[in-house]
């Protein structure tokens, strides 16, 4: 027989947590901590930062529980919070360092514009574990703007307009970033030799 706690729905736990029940919130953290952490890790590419930011996201989630109306699932709501924290952190990091060559290229079309189309399916024939390893490595080589737009579109299923709002840019910029991110991923996954632009 399943534990009563296991079969309690997220929404019931949220309602209890909204009344100040810390135990209910603890259960929500236990259920969704991996997903929230995974999103932070995919955006930050750093375990420690991902842990800190995911932790901050849960604290913020607790403080803003009163605003949760149930328009989306609780885990989607929490994921949006951690994405916003990661975007803020990435903006801070970007301000600290000089503009990267990659980011400058973005405005002029980038090197990906001149890449040949590699193959109909650059991932064909790869085993799943190898594919995941390569994708992970390739994502890590993208600029954070390109990586973020890919994550928000492909993993979070956001529309262009929503991504533009989250990232504070135009829909045109989102389309452009997404296109070049995909092209670069294709070239990286196909194993094409490319000069690293540091």
């Amino acid at each position: 027989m399943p534990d009563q706690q296991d079969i309690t729905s997220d929404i019931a736990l949220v309602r209890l947590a909204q009344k100040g029940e810390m135990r209910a919130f603890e259960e929500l953290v236990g259920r969704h901590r991996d997903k929230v952490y995974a999103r932070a890790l995919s955006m930050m590419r750093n375990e420690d930062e991902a842990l800190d930011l995911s932790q901050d996201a849960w604290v913020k989630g607790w403080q803003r529980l009163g605003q949760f109306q149930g328009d989306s699932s609780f885990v989607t709501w929490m994921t949006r919070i951690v994405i916003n924290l990661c975007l803020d952190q990435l903006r801070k990091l970007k301000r600290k360092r000089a503009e990267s060559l990659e980011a400058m290229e973005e405005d002029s079309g980038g090197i990906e514009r001149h890449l040949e189309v590699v193959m109909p399916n650059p991932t064909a024939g790869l085993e799943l574990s190898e594919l995941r390893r390569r994708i992970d490595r390739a994502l890590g080589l993208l600029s954070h703007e390109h990586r973020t737009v890919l994550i928000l579109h492909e993993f979070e299923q956001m529309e262009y307009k929503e991504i533009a709002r989250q990232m504070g840019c135009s829909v045109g910029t989102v389309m452009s970033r997404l296109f070049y991110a995909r092209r670069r991923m294709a070239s990286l996954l196909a194993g094409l030799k490319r000069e690293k632009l540091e």
Partner: protein
Amino acid sequence: MKQDLELKLQAWLDGELPSAEAQEMRLLAATDPEARRLMAELQGIKAALLQHEQAVAMPETREFYWSKIQQQIQRQDRLHPPILVPWSRHWRSWLAPLAAACALAAALILAVRPSPRAVALNQVSITADGYEARSFRDQSSGMNFVFLQETPKAAAGQPQPARTREDGSSFTIDIE
């Protein structure tokens, strides 16, 4: 291929293109080998990324992770205590109209009772923050009409004592 066409092809692939333009892209993909190759590449990447989304296990135990969150919440609560709705607000929600109704009733009794001043009041109104009670006496039929309605709340400020105004036939009490 021109950049705007490439972006349009991508938008078509993502289902973000209006139907008229989608038809244009469908035609392009069917007739232009370069467009077809680009579409295949974009589709391949999209599919690969979808497969890549995998569960990542957190490197900390549930208990340790939660204890850090709990500590942070408690620290935040000490620094910025949660804003609780004060009891006085609950009281005010029904106390104000009640007080207004009592005051109105008292004013009505005074108004209809013969007094040495013999002032015939036709209208009595009481305003409080967010409420207004108004009575009207029809002298010909000898009937009293009472209206109670919500009004926009005044800006927060220092409480002021009740004010009364009287101008012959009407009597007003302002409670702020």
